[in-house]
């Protein structure tokens, strides 16, 4: 039996290759994700082990807000004296090193690196790690040394100048030295470094002199690091985190690796999608192969093969395809990883001090998944093969038409339940369960749709076909497409799923975008907004609310004087500034803002709910009603709020406001913000124009005020609305690319089915040629069949996805249901293109059918 299987396999090489392709792609993506993550991860580990090799124990302040990646307040120099008496300490060094030293490049733009930090540090001379390559260390306040990676990125030379943005506005320094590291690299994991003299570094990076970002301790030889760590932790108490060098390295490396997650998620998502599609493709191929071989299988059964043997023979075939495809996929995955590593090294300028790491257990798992997917997909066809009765061998051809009643009834149940769930959610009869009802409804609906597709094809294919072809060859093609509803259903399944996702995501994204733009323009009374790159795009934060600095990175800011000067410009009625940060409340993190409420109130359209919106001192706040409710506070209460620099303090709540899209959370005075927020500078400025002022003229004048700050731009309302709405773009585009790829796989499915159908119908094609169809007619007929199927699949998917998306929009309570007709049309066009491409080879083949051979009797 095995020998017969192998021979059969060789005879169907091309077909099985097509089936295996999706598995190859899926396994490629999985293994690329594994290898890339392992390689880059281990590269980072190795880099940060070097960085912290001199550190036995490190002391830094515990952050006031949030987890470990956020801002940590500086360590006062007094702590050094406090520790001086500890017997186990050999030496103490105060370090200044913080993210947020943004060098301005020769083109006037800030030099950006993807992922790694842009550090500003205090020069400590050549340590074991740092080695000067050229020049010397900084000795005066206007001197800096920079690392070789930055020198290369920005083209800086010793003797030249460099402009740097820090907590303070743009400042120019003289470059007096360029340094590298003891491991021979010019950058640590791609980070750029600017080394100032210690007081300058303290002022620019930490906000005040006489403080350090952390202390590095060297233990005496006899004292284990852990012992020293515990002793110091006990001595300093809760306000500090004390870690050994190894712990610090692990933490730093973990932070650095965070961006790897994105790569990993994209690759895994793609692999999931292509494996899902692969299931359909394999299911289809094997179903058709089995149907084609009905006679052969019946003969084998008649000769006495047991059912188990027949199932086995089909599964062995599938297993071989799976093994081969998975092996190829892993090979390709490793190759892709090599490419990805090169791309990342080029992008970040970081050389990874490791070769390609191949995590064997992970790859074995990927291999197993590939094989398993193939086997599972082939199981149904295999079981069907075993049910072929021996008498089928004696019949001329097996009756392929099985009744659709059972499958339709089986599909109607989940479809009805799904629709009920969705309706329940939309009509809000299920209360708090509405999201569950919607999700469950969509999943059930999809299952129902899959099972109902064969029946739907009977009704819809003629309709679609009529739109596409009136000529006789077109009509014949349409009839052929409707011939085997089950096969058509499996063939178009990929397109249905893909375009379903496109439709759903498209509708939701477009509606969200419309919603956000609308909110921005209703809530914002200002004509111009001054903001850093990415601040206005983040306006509204993750779930509404103002931009926050929660990611711990320094937000682009500008001098408060810019707003004052703007207020004095001709044509300007008023200008005000908004300071932005994240604070900790007893119930968790919250965005926090500061500004002159007398002006902010009108610009942001704030509505007073209770008390007053006028603050008379740094210890008074106003809070939005949502936060009040969540915290269980009331106006007049004294509330505890932890700011990034100020830590836990008590504030009196003097008023409350209705939260709106641009402002939520506690609002403090500008004076409090200057002292207690991470950045003492405003992140947003609003400018209102006099009634007769020209927007363009004033915008140009305001832009002039921030001309020296490349991170800050002036936007009018339209731009702001577009910016705010654009935050959905990247996710959407990424998804579209993924789905585009799965359309490609969908093409394979159609090619497969078409090719097999052509083969099955050779005689018919011969007859058609004999009675006078031209070659062009044959091409037309096959193209029509392919197009009808792809358009049917596309429409079905888009319709389902669109409706599911509309349900989501309704349940989410978005103001407006917006349908992105253009994107949907483009994707339907893609489906049409898929149909055309898929028809290329089969139609050529049909046109070339040899009439005589086709009509020859056996």
């Amino acid at each position, binding site marked *: 039996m095995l020998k017969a299987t192998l021979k059969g396999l060789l005879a169907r090489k091309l077909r099985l290759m097509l089936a295996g392709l999706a598995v190859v792609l899926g396994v490629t993506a999985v293994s690329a994700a594994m290898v890339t993550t392992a390689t880059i991860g281990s590269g980072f580990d190795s880099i940060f082990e070097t960085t912290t090799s001199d550190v036995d124990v490190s002391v830094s302040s515990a952050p006031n807000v949030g987890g470990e990646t956020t801002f940590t307040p500086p360590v006062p120099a007094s702590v050094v004296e406090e520790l001086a008496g500890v017997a186990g300490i050999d030496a103490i060094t105060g370090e200044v090193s913080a993210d947020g030293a943004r060098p301005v490049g020769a083109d006037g733009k800030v030099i950006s690196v993807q992922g790694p930090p842009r550090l500003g540090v205090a020069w400590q001379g050549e340590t074991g790690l740092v080695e000067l390559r050229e020049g010397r260390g900084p000795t005066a306040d206007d001197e800096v040394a920079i690392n070789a990676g930055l020198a290369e990125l920005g083209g800086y030379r010793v003797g030249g100048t460099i402009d740097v943005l820090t907590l303070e506005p743009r400042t120019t320094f003289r470059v007096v030295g360029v340094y590298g590291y003891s491991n021979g690299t010019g950058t640590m994991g791609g980070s750029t470094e600017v080394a100032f003299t210690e007081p300058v570094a303290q002022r620019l990076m930490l906000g005040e002199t006489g403080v350090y970002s952390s202390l590095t301790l060297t233990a005496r030889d006899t004292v284990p690091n852990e012992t020293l760590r515990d002793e110091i932790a006990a001595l300093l108490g809760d306000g500090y985190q004390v870690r050994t060098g190894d712990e610090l390295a692990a933490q730093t490396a973990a932070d650095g690796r965070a961006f790897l997650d994105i790569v990993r998620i994209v690759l895994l998502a793609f692999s999931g999608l292509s494996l899902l599609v692969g299931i359909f493709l394999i299911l289809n191929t094997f179903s058709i192969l089995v149907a084609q071989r009905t006679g052969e299988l019946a003969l084998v059964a008649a000769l006495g093969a047991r059912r188990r043997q027949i199932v086995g023979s089909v599964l062995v075939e599938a297993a071989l395809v799976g093994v081969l495809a998975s092996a190829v996929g892993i090979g390709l995955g490793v190759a892709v990883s090599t490419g990805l590593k090169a791309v990342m090294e080029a992008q970040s300028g970081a050389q990874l001090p490791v070769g390609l790491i191949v995590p064997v257990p992970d790859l074995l798992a990927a291999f197993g998944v590939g094989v398993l997917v193939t086997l599972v997909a082939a199981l149904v066809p295999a079981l069907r093969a075993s049910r072929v009765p021996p008498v089928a061998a004696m019949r001329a051809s097996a009756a392929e038409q099985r009744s659709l009643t059972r499958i339709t009834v089986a599909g109607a149940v989940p479809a009805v339940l799904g629709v009920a769930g969705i309706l329940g959610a939309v009509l809000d009869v299920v209360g708090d369960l509405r999201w569950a009802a919607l999700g469950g409804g969509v999943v059930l609906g999809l299952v129902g749709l899959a099972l109902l597709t064969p029946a739907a094809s009977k009704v819809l294919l003629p309709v679609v076909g009529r739109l596409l072809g009136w000529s*006789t060859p077109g009509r014949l093609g349409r009839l052929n497409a409707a011939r085997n509803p089950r096969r058509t259903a499996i063939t178009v399944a990929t397109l249905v799923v893909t375009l379903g996702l496109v439709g759903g995501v498209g509708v939701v994204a477009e509606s969200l975008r419309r919603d956000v733009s609308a909110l921005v323009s209703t809530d914002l009374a200002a004509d111009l907004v001054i903001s850093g790159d990415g601040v206005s795009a983040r306006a509204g934060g993750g779930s509404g609310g103002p931009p926050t600095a929660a990611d711990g990175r320094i937000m682009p800011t500008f001098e408060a004087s810019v707003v004052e000067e703007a207020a004095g410009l001709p044509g300007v009625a008023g200008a005000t500034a908004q300071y932005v940060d994240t604070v900790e409340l007893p119930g968790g993190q919250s965005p926090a803002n500061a500004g002159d409420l007398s002006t902010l109130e009108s610009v942001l359209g704030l509505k007073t709910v209770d008390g007053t919106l006028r603050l008379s001192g740094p210890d008074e706040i106003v809070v939005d009603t949502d936060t009040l409710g969540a915290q269980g506070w009331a106006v007049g209460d004294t509330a505890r709020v932890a700011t990034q620099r100020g830590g836990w303090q008590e504030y009196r709540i003097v008023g409350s406001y209705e939260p709106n899209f641009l402002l939520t959370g506690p609002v403090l005075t500008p004076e409090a913000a200057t002292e207690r927020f991470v950045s003492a500078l405003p992140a947003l400025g609003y400018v209102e124009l006099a009634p007769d002022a020209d927007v363009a003229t004033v915008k140009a004048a305001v832009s002039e005020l921030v001309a020296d700050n490349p991170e800050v731009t002036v936007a009018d309302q339209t731009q702001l609305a577009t910016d705010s709405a654009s935050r959905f773009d990247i996710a959407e585009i990424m998804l579209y690319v993924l789905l585009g790829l799965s359309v490609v796989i969908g093409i394979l499915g159609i090619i497969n089915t078409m090719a097999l159908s052509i083969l099955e119908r050779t005689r*018919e094609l011969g007859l058609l040629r004999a009675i006078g169809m031209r070659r062009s007619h044959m091409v037309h007929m096959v193209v029509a069949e392919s197009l009808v199927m792809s358009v049917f699949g596309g429409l079905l998917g888009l319709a389902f996805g669109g409706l599911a998306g509309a349900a989501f929009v309704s349940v989410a309570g978005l103001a407006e249901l917006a349908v992105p007709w253009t994107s949907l049309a483009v994707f339907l066009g893609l489906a049409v293109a898929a149909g055309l491409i898929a028809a290329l080879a089969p139609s050529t083949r049909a046109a070339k059918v040899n009439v005589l051979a086709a009509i020859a009797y056996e």
Partner: protein
Amino acid sequence: MTTVTQETITGLAARAVGVTKAYGAGAAAVTALDDLSVDVQRGRFTAIMGPSGSGKSTLMHCLAGLDTVDSGEVWIGETRLTGLNDKGLADLRRNRVGFVFQQFNLLPTLTAEENITLPLAIANRKPDPAWFDTVVDAVGLSDRLTHRPSELSGGQQQRVACARALLPKPDVIFADEPTGNLDSRSGNEILGFLSRSVEQFHQTIVMVTHDANAAAYADRVIFLLDGRMVHELHDPDAEAVLDTMKALDTFDSR
């Protein structure tokens, strides 16, 4: 051979002139047709007979423009097939030639009526309703027009094929073993219909068969051996055909 000239007055529906056709190459080459010349008279029912490998199917395929010849010429009416391109041949088959095959004659996706009108539909032509009714009545399918092939018996399917061949009023209908897959009653119905269409509608029919009974329906029977015409009979009965077949080996094909 001597009787051919009598019929030239009524014109020729098809003819082969010095046609040679070989398959394969070198030592394995098989000569299917060997310098063969045949005339098919208009309005007559011609049968081609011969043992397996005598070239009878090849002759029909060449006459019908389904296959090309190595040398010689093939004509349908006044049109020379030799040298026509694929498109020209396809159009000729559609408009001027009808086919009835042994099996797989119909498209399973179309109804009987749609199958009958298919060649016209491909050419974007509408059938003449009166003629359509005449043809359908003649094959006795008036009450089966909306059925699909799978709902028809073998004989009925073959009658649909006959109606399809007849509807465009082609120069020639080629029938390749049209009764080969049928029981004798259905077979006789088909043969009766074919000879009636010659008598009543003056249709020209060329039929390849190895069945003496079927050949007996023809006006003229041509016997092939080794790619050459070795004998012919006019208005024969089954016995005469059978006798000729039995004696075929004794004819010298050289």
